[in-house]
């Protein structure tokens, strides 16, 4: 069973941008791309933990604001020559609301 958390509407997130949401003390970055798809990742670059939510969103990637690593929003994987992966969080778009899955680690703790 998955806990779904309602975090707001598409309009709450700027296009080609991101917002953060705090869930159980964990900061989650919720991205909205140019084609209005929504993705959620832990708000930490796999490189030096830069806040991905503050990066430039292009296509389905975000460039980390600290060292410009490009992270694929769908998989959390670093692109190009860089290696590393940020945990992703399931998102669904239902009845105009955006719902994200409670992260697994926190579910176990809950």
């Amino acid at each position, binding site marked *: *069973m*998955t*806990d*779904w*958390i*309602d*975090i*707001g509407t598409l309009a*709450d*997130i*700027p*296009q*080609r*941008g991101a*917002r*953060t*949401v*705090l*869930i159980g003390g964990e*900061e989650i970055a*919720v991205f909205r*791309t*140019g*084609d209005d798809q929504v993705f959620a990742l832990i708000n930490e670059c796999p490189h*030096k*933990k*830069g*806040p991905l939510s*503050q*990066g*430039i*969103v*292009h*296509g*389905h990637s975000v*460039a980390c*604001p*600290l060292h*410009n690593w*490009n992270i694929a929003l769908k998989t959390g994987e670093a692109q190009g020559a860089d290696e590393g992966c940020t945990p992703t969080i399931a998102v669904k778009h239902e009845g105009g609301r955006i*719902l994200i899955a*409670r992260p697994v680690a926190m579910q176990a703790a809950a």
Partner: protein
Amino acid sequence: MQFEIETQAETGPVAGSEDQMLVPMDDVREHLVVVGNGMAGCRAVEELLARDGTRYRVTIFGAEPYVNYNRIMLSPVLAGEKTFEQIVINDRAWYEDNGIELIAGDPVTAIDRAAKNVTAQSGRTVHYDKLLIATGSDPFIIPVPGKDMPGVISFRDMKDVDTMIDAAGKGGDAVVIGGGLLGLEAAHGLTLRGMKVTVIHLMDTLMERQLDEAAGWLLKSALEARGQTILTGANTAEIYGEGKVEGVRLKDGRDIPASLVVMAVGIRPATALARKAGLAVNRGIKVDDHMVTSDADVLAVGECVEHDGNVYGLVAPLWDMCRSLADGLTDQHSGYKGSVTSTKLKVAGLDVFSAGDFSGGEGCEDIVLRDASRGVYKRVVVKDDRVIGAVLYGDTADGGWYFDLLKRGENVADMRDLLIFGQAFAQGGGALDPKSAVAALSDDAEICGCNGVSKGQVVSCIEEGACSLDAVRAGCKASASCGSCTGLVQNLLAVVLGDEVQSGPKTMCKCTSFGHDDVRREIVAQDMRYIPEVMQKLHWSTPDGCSSCRPALNYYLLCALPGVYVDDQQSRFVNERMHANIQKDGTYSVVPRMWGGLTSPRELRAIADVVEKYNAPMVKVTGGQRLDIFGIKKEDLPAVWADLNAAGMVSGHAYGKSLRTVKTCVGSEWCRFGTQDSTGLGVKTERMTWGSWMPHKFKIAVSGCPRNCAEATIKDFGIVCVDSGYELHVGGNGGIHVRVTDFLCKVGTEQEALDYCAAFTQLYREDARYLERTAPWIERVGVDYVKQRIVEDEAGREALRARFLFSQQFMQDDPWAQRAAGANSDLHQHLDPISIAAE
């Protein structure tokens, strides 16, 4: 080797000269004579050479005194976007390398089929074994009084373009008769060259053969917005004038003054030569599937022919014909089956596409998408679950795909509900990725309309070793003419080669084939106003750019359109979006401005209070003579700024590609060595320059004497005061590569120092590439160039200064105060989860 003179004529202007045709006596190959040195004639020869380079000896006659050029590119030449040299398809070397004799400027006037000779205007007679007629078409001149008057021309060849350019140089009014493609391109070119243009079109819809009524209306409105007068349903009665054109009178009595009239109502196949030779001619010269006329040794190709009852006036069918012709000449006999045509073009910078049948009719169903505010109209005509026609206006990216569906007759029932949204949506998967879109095209989908190159041909060119855009252009000519398919070719390169693509030497980023300077020039030239518009018009290969090009485009637009352009926050690096400096732990540092390095008890108290109130773990004096408060959370930033604003402080822009600090020493007010009031001048300089966005960070310093305590000679702009005035220095840098400034000049007064500073800053803003500091910029352009623009060109300096000050009106608005008042609050706040649902 022995030679003999082949031609008998010795009296003509060309024959008898050193141009005489010398033919090796032992060359016993069949002689192919081509009448017409245009796109069809030369393409046919190219196709032939590609199949068998030695079988025929080739002679080409051309009526115009030029090598083979791309006639459809005459419009950019008229518009001043290209030179003649840039539209040449095959230069002299091509003729020489392939042993082709070119007789240019000497039109063929007669064919003697019995003797198998052609005779040219000069009297030169040449024997042929095979004759290819590729005379193209003639402009249609409407039979109205005054049609032969000086000042009335057509739009067909280089000579017409030269005439129009000359006429435009004198300014005044022009009338273009004909609102088809050719007429509108002539009108666009003349408008760009400064003439006041009226287009007269007989029908009610512009380009009615390519566009339906709705798209024609959008086009008309857009052209009117560009300053042209468009009269539809207008019938020309006469062209009047005393000795030369003075105007055009319509049948309804309206009278339009004009010193130039361009007749562009249509073209008709040039068949006079063939008709005179007794060949079968209907509307065009009749040919069979192998492009053979009623005489087995005479072939014809291009716009002059009629195949199966059809005459074509577009370039794409010509490529198909040339392939069948060359196959026939080399005994392969593929046979031409007629062409389905599509038109994808730009009229006055507006994208237009049409294909197939869009006239409607029984069983036809229309799927239409309109987005009037974006100027987009799409209509796809479907019959029996197959696409039979399409009209696109404003966004033609999917034109190739619709055309591909149409030609293949593919059943679209399964994707019908998404069809109008284009390939990415209808076929899924690639909604945002242009690469997967091009990968999904079929091999015979056309990539380059100008040169008739299919996807399969581009791919094989790449597979044969072309690993850059230039190599593809050289190899198969795709993207070598108008360039509108450059993005497609680049995506194909990426698809085929992956990371092995060699980009050009200086493209802006991987999203584009253009360099920084090209992009900036086009932004200004085409009056572009939005980032997506730049990406669309310059064929970006990615849907919304990358973290390199987006901030650059945002800056270029901001610089080009002060007060007009709306800054795109999502194209700003984090620091500029948050108006603070991000630190490695994700918190921010905050640097309030201290004018010229001066501060006061009130400011210091406010800073101390902020440090305590928000538990800032560190405060540090910066290298730029101000205080940096560390460890502020993004949620607290607006409150911190409000507190600092309350004490009269504004953003120090310590985070921006912008004016940072103006560093000063104490100067003549206190220092025993000081020669001028360096502190006061520093404050004035900072008051003038603060808030301006730049290609990169920009630092200023003012030293009160040559001891230079403010280190002005490693700043972007440095002022060193001396007894007799102010020495101005530019292009210094104290970073990784320390660079001492270049001396610009010396001025006598504070006001001059400020004026030169403003002018230099603006020159840097307009000239340097994004993320280029003044030091590398000056090394690139040379300090002499900077001196010429700032010191020698007095009027230019004044204009630069004025542009800077104009732009500053819109920039000196404290971003902190805006944020403290609640602007962009979502950037600082977490989303608030409102409920938890379980399933």
